[in-house]
């Protein structure tokens, strides 16, 4: 009896003690445990908690389940099972026969018979119903995790009351009572226990249990969920992987998908070993090296970059290959290697390369392969792992030998009884900064030796062989293991977290790991290369309980607690892990149409919808009464608090209202939907409208900004006034504009903005603007925008977050205010057409250094120039001081001719390579820097001969420039025919030639002319001679006749008749002489000038009319130039004149005749006019045979004669007025020059 009482007291005491200590977590296991085919399993409690039949406590159990076996792998069972000793009591999970999440009870004997007695658990996310029957339970689905909370109210001596909540709301402020009914299952069962087993049996791969706890109240479990105020990252799902991966596959340029090995050389390049050769990566471009470059073909097993800048390639069966200075050198068994299959490489502090092969260890030093004496024991054994720790010690792992530390010439084995077998099968080795030794051993273990303690981690696996083939350590101490079938494993703070394809890893079969110099983690898998990135963008939608469709309003009602409004779907609340629908009776008043939300300064929250506002004074308690402020007929889309106590309300109809002290004051009607309101300075309010630009509203007066002022669109979507007073304006179709000091600058797709519709403008703590647009979220620095406005840069390069970063829909919703939310912890929330997107801008907090710049290749006419090599910096460490990448000190010399030159440069930055911007310049050709953006090639289609220097610099995403960059001197030689001396010489030669030719031509002409003249002269001389001879011969004799006849005449015995005859004879002979005289005169070349002709003419005229009775008047100009007239000319002219004289003499009956010679410089004119009868020119009839006809003939002759010599004959006459004959001879024929 007393014993009973004591027992009771004890129990009371215990229970009192237990109950006295309210709100306590009795036991928890936050780690991950995979259970598969466990049979009865084993206890996880370790005696921490127990309840027996006498207990009256109430315990709350929580377990989180990630089922691998699911409905598709039935039949199976998996459970979190309470055991009392070896007796089964209550199992929660999935019963063998059950499909859904279920609980099963054991019978009185403690046997569950595979959960024969099972109860399906109610669920709030039941399976979709078919054929009308409503199913209220939920089947386990692989990939969809589930939290099960169950409460046991212990009743002494009887079955206990069990309440199970399937996926309850464990958000802040969640209570037991507030849980929806539809996820509660209640039954009675015997639940006394002192052990908890995690079990699985049957089909499938098992279940993963984590986050298990036992507490005394529901609130403890809620609190455990990380919902305390002030905790970091509470919004971003705890338990949700914070990582994402950037992947490269063959589509992105990776030469082969299988990344078997990874290494980084001292110049910064990343090297990837594939099934056939290696590829070099600079963050943007892969360059393959294989058989054509001299690398033996075959798969690469391991890669290593040594401290001298070489890359070592361990192949499968082709030996060890070294890449240095552009060519490959192979070492095989011939050179002393124990085997041609290389499995591990490392470098010790003495600069020796340790080579682990399939048949032992070898060393390489200064071109020689040697062996280590102490490594004799590994002969014939496969050395699978080599590592140099932070102190410089070498570690070795070999199959069937163990793991060893090399010290003082000896290999000291690691020993541990428990893991002895595992140590015989090491796959990978790592010694972290803290000195812990990590070994990937056996099929699925990672052993960690911390001091003397060994801690085995078992890899939760789906495949038989899932060993850790690679290990890596991040700068912050996180150790990573890559499993050949399970993906990545993160060991942090004693926990193992699997990160696999579901987080974005390209494939779960990891082959290699590398932590590069900047601390980035690279994962090479069977299908692709991955770079681990901290996830800073999270997209929440249905999976997080947000329901389907778009979100518009967002408000932070309490630190970390976000309300999201969905049009047509009501209000949801985010608790840090999930969204849940807010069931508030008040909301039903408003209907489901929520347009926007505003969290007020006083802690209350305004909800705007159709027809009015709902005011929640205490949003944390939604069950409280909310006040409705109706605005019938108006669709409220914008809300804003002014610095006073008023709430500004804008509607879709264009009405602007102010609500103060619960009274509506109408402000104005802008006729266009009011999509944005922000408070300005001095009590003004900036109002953005849809279709009419932006108004500054100041108690009635308004300034206006629209397309007239410089905006590109009048459809305003968002407004934001920053601390510097700049008003940022997001428009639909017109990009982003900003207004400052009365001046508007606009950024559109032309300047680098990905999309021209900006619906959200949020500023983070680093002066960057995050813009929600129709093409994702764009982040651009304000300083960059200032530079754009100042004209210093032509474009900006914003960081873009879209589907690739995890957004489900790239379109951000907008058209209401406030749009987007910056939470108190600094995260940025964007509403989109599919749920919400949360971005953590603080992820990239570390200041990126200025990027390195390397000149990779120079292509001349499309062919890589052989005279150019990249010389990597000698030291393996990257110095803080950026030295220009030394291209060969020699100058690149190009031969003469037209060359196309391509400079391929790069920057080795893996963080955000697409944001690295370049500028280059070919000094000597370019007058200024060429902005290349993120283009990595400079192209010159023609470089004239000369000396140049190519200079390229780069800046990173933060705008930090590496001004030294990379340079290369280059000369293009001239063709010999381009050199100055040749050109000069040829110019001179040309000149001389020209001159020579000209002179030759001149001379030739002169000569010809001379010849011609000579000929003419000869001819003339001949003529003259003939004439003269004639004249001389005949002249004298004729004269004689004249005198003889005169003498005869004088003879008195001669009759008068005879006298007459004699006179005739002498006259005739004188005539002959006269004619001869004329002929000779005409022919005489000395008489060939104008002067002579004129004077002869005068004389001739006088002589002709001497005895005729006609008075002849001659007028010749005093001075006549010695213009040359050819004999032909003279001849014709004289004959013509003679003809004129004859006419005048015979037919004119004139008494006077005048002969004028006129010369006006251009023509010679001889005018013969008489005062005779004249004639009527028109009456001349050639047929009439009289004097007129003769005149006519004569006239015709004259005309002909003049025409023959290029002149003309003009005849003027009038009856009774005499005849004037004008002979005109143009003398302007140019004197024939040479």
């Amino acid at each position, binding site marked *: 009896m007393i014993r009973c009482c004591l027992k009771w007291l004890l129990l009371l005491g215990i229970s009192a003690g237990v109950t006295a200590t309210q709100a306590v977590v009795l036991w928890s296991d936050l780690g991950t445990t995979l259970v598969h085919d466990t049979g009865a399993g084993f206890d996880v409690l370790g005696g921490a908690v127990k309840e027996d039949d006498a207990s009256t406590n109430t315990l709350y159990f929580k377990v989180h389940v990630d089922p691998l076996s699911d409905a598709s792998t039935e039949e199976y069972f998996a459970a979190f099972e309470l055991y009392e000793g070896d007796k089964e009591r209550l199992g929660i999970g999935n019963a063998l026969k059950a499909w859904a999440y279920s609980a099963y009870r054991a019978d009185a004997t403690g046997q569950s018979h595979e959960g024969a007695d099972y109860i399906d658990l109610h669920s709030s996310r039941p399976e979709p119903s078919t054929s009308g029957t409503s199913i209220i339970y939920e089947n386990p689905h692989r990939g969809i995790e589930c939290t099960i909370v169950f409460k046991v109210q212990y009743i002494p001596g009887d079955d206990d009351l069990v309440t199970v909540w399937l996926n309850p709301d464990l958000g802040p402020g969640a209570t037991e009572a507030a849980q929806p009914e539809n996820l509660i299952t209640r039954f009675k069962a015997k639940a006394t226990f002192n052990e908890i087993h995690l079990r699985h049996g049957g089909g499938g791969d098992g279940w993963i249990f984590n986050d298990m706890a036992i507490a005394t109240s529901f609130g403890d479990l809620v609190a455990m969920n990380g919902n305390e105020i002030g905790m970091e990252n509470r919004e971003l799902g705890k338990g949700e992987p914070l990582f994402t991966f950037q992947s490269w596959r063959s589509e992105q340029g990776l030469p082969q998908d299988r990344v078997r090995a990874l290494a980084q050389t001292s110049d910064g390049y990343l090297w990837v070993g594939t099934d056939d050769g290696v590829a070099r990566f600079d963050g943007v471009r892969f360059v393959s090296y294989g058989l054509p470059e001299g690398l033996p073909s075959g798969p690469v097993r391991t890669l290593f970059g040594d401290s001298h800048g070489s890359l070592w390639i361990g192949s499968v069966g082709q030996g060890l290959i070294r890449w240095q200075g552009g060519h490959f050198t192979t070492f095989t068994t011939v050179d002393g290697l124990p085997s041609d299959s290389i499995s591990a490489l490392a470098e010790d502090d003495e600069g020796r390369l340790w080579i682990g092969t399939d048949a032992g260890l070898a060393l390489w030093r200064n071109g020689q392969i040697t062996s280590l004496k102490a490594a004799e024991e590994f002969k014939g054994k496969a050395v699978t792992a080599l590592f140099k720790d932070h102190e410089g010690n070498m570690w070795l792992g070999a199959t069937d030998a163990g793991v060893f530390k090399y010290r003082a010439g000896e290999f000291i084995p690691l020993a541990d009884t428990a893991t002895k077998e595992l140590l015989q099968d090491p796959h990978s080795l790592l010694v972290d900064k803290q000195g812990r030794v990590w070994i990937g051993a056996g099929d699925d273990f990672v052993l960690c030796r911390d001091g003397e303690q060994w801690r085995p981690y078992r890899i939760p696996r789906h495949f038989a062989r899932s060993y850790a083939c690679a290990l890596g350590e991040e700068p912050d101490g996180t150790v990573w293991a890559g499993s050949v079938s399970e993906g990545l494993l993160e060991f942090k703070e004693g926990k193992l977290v699997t990160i696999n394809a579901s987080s974005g890893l390209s494939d779960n079969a990891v082959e290699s790991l590398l932590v590069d110099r900047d601390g980035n983690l690279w994962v090479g898998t069977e299908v692709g290369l991955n770079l681990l990135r901290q996830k800073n963008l999270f997209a929440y939608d249905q999976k997080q309980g947000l329901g389907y469709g778009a979100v518009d309003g967002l408000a932070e009602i309490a630190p970390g607690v976000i309300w999201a409004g969905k049009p047509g779907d009501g209000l949801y609340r985010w608790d840090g892990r999930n969204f849940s629908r807010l069931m508030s009776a008040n909301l039903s008043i408003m209907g489901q149409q929520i347009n926007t939300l505003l969290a007020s300064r006083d802690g209350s929250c305004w909800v705007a919808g159709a027809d009015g506002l709902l005011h929640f004074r205490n949003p944390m308690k939604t069950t409280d009464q909310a006040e409705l402020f109706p605005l019938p007929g108006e669709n409220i889309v914008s809300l804003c608090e002014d610095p006073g106590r008023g709430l500004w309300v804008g509607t879709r109809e264009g009405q602007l209202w102010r609500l103060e002290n619960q009274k509506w004051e109408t402000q104005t009607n802008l006729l266009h939907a009011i999509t944005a309101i922000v408070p300005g300075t001095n009590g003004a309010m900036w109002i953005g409208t849809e279709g009419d630009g932006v108004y500054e509203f100041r108690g009635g007066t308004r300034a206006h900004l629209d397309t007239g002022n410089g905006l590109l669109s009048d459809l305003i979507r968002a407004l934001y006034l920053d601390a510097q007073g700049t008003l940022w304006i997001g428009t639909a179709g017109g990009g982003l504009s900003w207004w400052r000091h009365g001046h508007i600058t606009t950024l559109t797709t032309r300047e680098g903005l990905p999309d021209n519709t900006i619906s959200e403008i949020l500023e983070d703590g680093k002066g960057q603007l995050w813009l929600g647009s129709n093409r994702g979220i764009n982040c651009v620095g304000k300083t960059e925008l200032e530079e754009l406005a100042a004209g210093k840069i032509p474009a900006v390069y914003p960081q873009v977050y879209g589907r690739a970063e995890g957004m489900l829909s790239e379109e951000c919703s907008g058209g209401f205010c406030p749009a987007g939310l910056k939470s108190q912890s600094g995260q940025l929330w964007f509403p989109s057409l599919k749920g919400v997107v949360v971005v953590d801008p603080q992820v990239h907090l570390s200041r990126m250094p200025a990027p390195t710049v390397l000149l990779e290749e120079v292509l001349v006419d499309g062919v890589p120039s052989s005279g150019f090599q990249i010389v990597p910096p000698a030291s393996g460490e990257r110095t803080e001081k950026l030295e220009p990448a030394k291209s060969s000190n020699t100058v690149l010399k190009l031969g003469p001719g037209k060359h196309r030159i391509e400079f391929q440069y790069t920057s080795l930055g893996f963080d955000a390579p697409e944001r690295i911007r370049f500028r280059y310049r070919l000094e000597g050709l370019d007058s200024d820097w060429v902005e290349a953006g993120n283009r990595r090639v400079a192209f010159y289609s023609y470089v004239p001969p000369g000396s140049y220097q190519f200079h390229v610099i780069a800046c990173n995403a933060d705008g930090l420039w590496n001004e030294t960059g990379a340079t290369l001197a280059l000369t293009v030689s001239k063709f010999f025919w381009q050199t100055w001396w040749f050109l000069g010489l040829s110019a001179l030669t040309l000149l001389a030639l020209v001159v020579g030719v000209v002179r030759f031509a001149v001379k030739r002409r002169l000569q010809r002319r001379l010849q011609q003249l000579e000929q003419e002269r000869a001819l003339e001389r001949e003529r003259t001679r003939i004439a003269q001879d004639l004249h001389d011969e005949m*002249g004298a004799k004729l004269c004689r006749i004249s005198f003889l006849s005169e003498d005869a005449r004088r003879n008195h015995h001669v009759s008068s008749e005879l006298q007459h005859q004699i006179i005739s004879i002498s006259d005739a002979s004188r005539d002959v002489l006269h004619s001869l005289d004329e002929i*000779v005169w005409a022919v005489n070349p000395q008489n060939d000038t104008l002067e002579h002709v004129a004077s002869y003419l005068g004389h001739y005229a006088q002589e002709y009319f001497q005895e005729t009775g006609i008075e002849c008047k001659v007028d010749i100009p005093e001075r006549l130039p010695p213009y040359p007239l050819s004999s032909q000319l003279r001849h014709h002219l004289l004959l013509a004149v003679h003809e004129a004289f004859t006419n005048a003499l015979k037919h004119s009956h004139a008494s006077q005749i005048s002969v004028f010679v006129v010369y006006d410089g251009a023509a010679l004119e001889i005018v013969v006019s008489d005062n005779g009868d004249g004639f009527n020119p028109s009456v001349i009839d050639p047929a009439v045979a009289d004097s007129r006809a003769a005149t006519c003939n004569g006239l015709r002759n004259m005309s002909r004669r003049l025409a023959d010599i290029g002149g003309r004959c003009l005849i003027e006459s009038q009856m009774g007025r005499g005849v004037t004959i004008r002979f005109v001879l143009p003398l302007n024929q140019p004197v024939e020059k040479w």
Partner: protein
Amino acid sequence: MITVSIVDDEKGLRESIGKFIEGSPGFRCVSAYPSAETALKHLPQDRPDVVLMDIHLTGMSGIECVEHLKTMMPEIQVMMLTIYEDTDQIFRALSAGASGYVLKRSTPARLLEAIKDLKEGGSPMSSSIARKVVASFQTSGQIRDDKTNLSPREQMVLESMAKGLTYKQTADQLGISIDTIRTYVRRIYDKLHVQSRTEAVAKYLQH
């Protein structure tokens, strides 16, 4: 009685002219020479009033002969005989000292007339000759004195002749008699001769 001497290398002509002159009343042909050389040898003794000199002679030319003749016998009147009117030659002869010229083909009557004119102090001039004379006076050399300068009257006559006016026309124009014209022309020739001789001397002296 006018005494005439003929210098011509054509025998037949020489004899015909000689006979003709002899047969003409008031004229007497005192000698006939076939060449300048023989003429120069004998003419100083003959002392005719007028010498009829052919321009073209074998050996020394008629022009040269005139020069020499005028040097030896300055007051002698030389009439050049020429078959055709070679203005240059005639001008040269006039410059050399001839006082006139006549064409061989002139009528014999004309010949006599010309000789008579010459004896009386006149000289024939054709427009061509006149022009040449004008040109010569304009371009004459350095030494210029009253002896060589033409008087205004002489200038006018020369110009008119150069223009082509006949003696008669010139006389009409200037209001003087033809004889006066002839006298002027003679003076012009004399000055021409002087001028040319002076030039020759000057040239000679220069060398």
